[in-house]
């Protein structure tokens, strides 16, 4: 009898995820906001905002972070798009092994891989001490390339060959078909790829530290620095700024995605 009383409902399935998001998403977010708008003694204050805008150094760090994030995203897309296109064509890619080749670098430990890249670059003359930006971008592109290839590859696999043929049929040559049909149709993949690269680059600092040999300060470095020194409030405010930027980019990308087909998108 008592067993019958418990009726399983589908909504119970959401409990594990609910607990997860409360502990690892919602609670930390509330903490960030709380710390960002309080002072050391836990009193409500705007002094962190003032602190951030009082120093022009902070502002340039933010700009450099955005620029590096954008450069990384664009370069990754430029390299990843043709690769994904080749991989999605059966003619060139007879098995999944080729796809695996591009994903395999992810199996090596991230710090180790980046350090090895630095040594390799130094060996061919791109010294992180002398060219911190070039080295950092190379390191980032190498690390984030798989994140671009995968969503693009899966979007391209789902693409209807007939639509490309329809474009030729209606009088478009290969170049016109690429820009007027293939690019717009893979837009959801491009958006997914861009968000998957841009957001983590914004807050990463390990790559720039290793590749640029601590010559570059990104906003991630600032947060880390402040947290290490126990300045939780100002660190949280920086984190909040990143959060705002990511939120903004999601909204912007979503508009672009709406214009394209909804298939294969991340959101």
């Amino acid at each position, binding site marked *: 009898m008592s067993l019958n009383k418990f009726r399983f409902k589908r909504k119970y399935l959401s409990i594990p995820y609910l607990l997860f998001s409360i502990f690892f998403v919602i609670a930390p977010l509330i903490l960030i906001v709380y710390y960002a708008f309080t002072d050391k003694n836990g009193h409500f204050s705007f002094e962190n905002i003032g602190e951030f805008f009082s120093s022009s150094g902070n502002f340039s760090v933010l700009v450099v972070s955005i620029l590096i994030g954008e450069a990384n995203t664009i370069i990754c897309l430029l390299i990843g798009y043709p690769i994904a296109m080749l991989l999605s064509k059966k003619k060139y890619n007879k098995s999944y092994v080729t796809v695996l080749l591009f994903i395999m670098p992810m199996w090596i430990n991230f710090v180790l891989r980046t350090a090895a890249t630095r040594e390799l670059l130094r060996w061919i003359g791109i010294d992180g001490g002398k060219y911190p930006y070039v080295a950092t971008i190379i390191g980032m592109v190498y690390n984030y390339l798989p994140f671009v290839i995968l969503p693009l590859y899966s979007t391209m696999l789902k693409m209807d060959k007939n*639509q490309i043929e*329809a*474009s030729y*049929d*209606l*009088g478009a040559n290969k170049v016109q078909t690429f820009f007027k049909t293939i690019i*717009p*149709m893979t837009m959801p993949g491009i958006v997914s790829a861009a968000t998957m690269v841009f957001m983590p680059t914004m807050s990463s600092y390990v790559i720039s530290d290793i590749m640029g040999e601590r010559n570059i300060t990104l906003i991630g470095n600032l947060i880390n620095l402040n947290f290490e020194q126990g300045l939780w409030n100002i660190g949280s405010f920086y984190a909040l700024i990143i959060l705002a930027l990511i939120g903004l980019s999601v909204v912007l990308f979503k508009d672009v995605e709406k*214009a394209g*087909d909804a298939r294969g998108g991340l959101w």
Partner: protein
Amino acid sequence: MQEQKDIIIELKNVTKEYDGVTVVDHFNLAIRKGQFVTFLGPSGCGKTTTLRMIAGFELATSGEILLGGKDISQIPPHKRPINTVFQRYALFPHLDVYDNIAFGLKLKKIPDEHKKDKNGEPKLRHLTKSEIDKKVMNALKVVDLEEFESRDVTTLSGGQQQRVAIARAIVNEPEILLLDEPLGALDLKMRKEMQIELKEMHKKLGITFIYVTHDQEEALTMSDVIVVMKDGMIQQVGEPKAIYDEPINTFVADFIGESNIYSGTILDDNHVSFLNHSFECVDHFPKNEKVDVVLRPEDIFLMEEGKGMVDGKLVAKVFKGIYYEYTMMVGKNEVIIQDTQNLEIDCMASIFIKPFDIHIMHKEFVSNIYDGYIDKRNNVVFAGGKFECDVTSLIPGTTLDEEGYLVQQDGTKYDLNDADVKIEVGLKDIEIIDNEEDGAVAGEIVSIIYKGDHYQIIIRTEEDEDFVVDTEWTWNENDKVSIQIPKEKIHMTLTKEAKEYVVE
């Protein structure tokens, strides 16, 4: 001469191979301007491939495609004045209805009368916005989608999407419009409506339509000319009525409309025997020839027992709206009859057929013929399989010795290892086995035609050899089976003289 001028597109010996497999085999066809031509056939018959070669998505392995007399077989699709309506519409999801239709127009360049280049030739210019606007609105009107121009294509129903796809193609004013099973994804009612609308559009626009379908009813309803295809080859070309009334072989008869197909024998100039009865007929065939006889169910009249030509027992009745479909057993043969009378089943009745409704055609397969050879163990190898056989039948009066040589009574020895032979196997002598492993050769059933009291089945092996089998057992198309042939049913003859194989 007049006819020659009218021809808009001509396919000459067009052949397409994929990795050595021939999909379209020496396709020859001339299409007149303004015709509605339908390629009809079961899936895999090469109809879509032929269409794609006309569109330019596939290049012909050999042969010519002449458009207005010029060979276009190597020209890329964007330079051909031909547009396609795809089966799954293939609309651009990132564009709205207007931009989908305007896609081709925006790319198009036309000669500009006002500007001349150095040689005095008019310069090319893009269409102006108002020109495009006018054409798009006109196309929308043709497909009955006015005021839909700013709709997102993904929000449209299947039928509406199909209309957009048609508008997108016809707006470019192509010389030929290709339609690849355009109604395949629509429901029955919608399909019927669109059939009529397409036909009207064809009349109004005057463009040549080439239409691909596997639906025989659709082909009969819409076309001026039907091209029936099978295995990459044209079976019959003709007007719908001619194809329905005078099918050239049992495949066409079975594929188009319902039919009763029987094996018969020609008795004399105007009599043919089937269903254990001699029928008067109008086709002339050589006496004693074994033929296939095709009767359309609606051409058979039901009468009281004893009053018609042949009596039989009605065993089943299905109401079909305006008529009943009866199944009658005449001896072992099944006869399908469509009649408006409401009769009791399980009763005896009689049938009457008018002489010109009896369609007689040459039998396609009288027996299976193969080339093969004898192997070391005196088995015969042909059609990708190894069969036990009686080699002594190849040279009369011989026996086999212990070493495997054939020995004549006078002591002449023959070694038939590797000897080339012709093999003939009767249609009824091949046994079909359910299990692919158990027979001598495995294959797939590619065709089944019911012939009154038995089925004629074609089994195709992986090496593309066909076995035609007459059997009383029911099988399904695409079944994977294997075949076996009893030793004594394999009839062999040597290709060379027997003396070539004498051992000294």
